[in-house]
């Protein structure tokens, strides 16, 4: 699956990072037709990258922040682990030099 391999989908996602938008708004901002935007949004939705919500008569699309938060959590713990390992090694090194 390559939801983001398409340049237009990346542009759409970038726009949505600025806040929720309707299909028409995206189409007005980007050099693509409204049906094309809908099509791309469908792919992004299936990939779990955007979610859709009804707001009155409008459908608003937004970035799936749960997904982003999950990525962030993962990377946070990744770098915490790496730096903890470095800290331990540095402390061992410092002790060696004290001897």
């Amino acid at each position, binding site marked *: *699956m*390559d*939801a*983001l*391999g398409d340049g237009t989908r*990346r542009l759409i*996602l*970038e726009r949505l*990072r600025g*806040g929720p938008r309707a299909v028409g708004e995206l189409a007005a901002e980007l050099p693509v037709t409204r049906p094309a935007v809908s099509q791309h949004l469908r792919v992004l939705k299936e*990939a*779990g*990258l955007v979610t859709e919500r009804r707001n009155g008569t409008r459908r608003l699309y937004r*970035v*799936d*922040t*749960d*997904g*982003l*938060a*999950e*990525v*962030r959590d*993962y*990377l*946070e713990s*990744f*770098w*915490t*682990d*790496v*730096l*903890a*390992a*470095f*800290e*331990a*090694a*540095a*402390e061992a*090194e*410092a002790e060696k030099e004290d001897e």
Partner: protein
Amino acid sequence: MTTHATETDAIRKTVSVPLPVEKAFSLFTSGIDTWWPFESHSIGGDKTASAVFDVEAKRLYERDADGSEHDWADIVAWEPPSRFLLNWRVNPSRPETELEVRFSPEGGATRVELEHRGWEKCGPEDRSSYDEGWDVVLGKLVDAA
């Protein structure tokens, strides 16, 4: 600050280590084999034998027990003992994210600040494959934007 802004901020981590800045820098880089958690944080996993900061070739890569090499990053800036800047490109077909590590003297000790920028380009579409390892995290995952 909105939730959105918080979630896409750079990831920043800081530790202080009881070594002078030159030693801290060299332990982190040329001494990486002695401390990096390869089993859990590499492409080859427990097959990974070492990691190499090849400053001349501007390249950071891991070398596995069978001799195969996997790129981790391009070295973009190399300023010992103060800082280095990398472009992670574990999978060359994906966009890069930036990793900067800064070393500053703090008395006789060193403050190490790590900043991972552009990670928000990571696509949550890969979140189900997290367990597959670093390759996913910093390479395949970085498939967005």
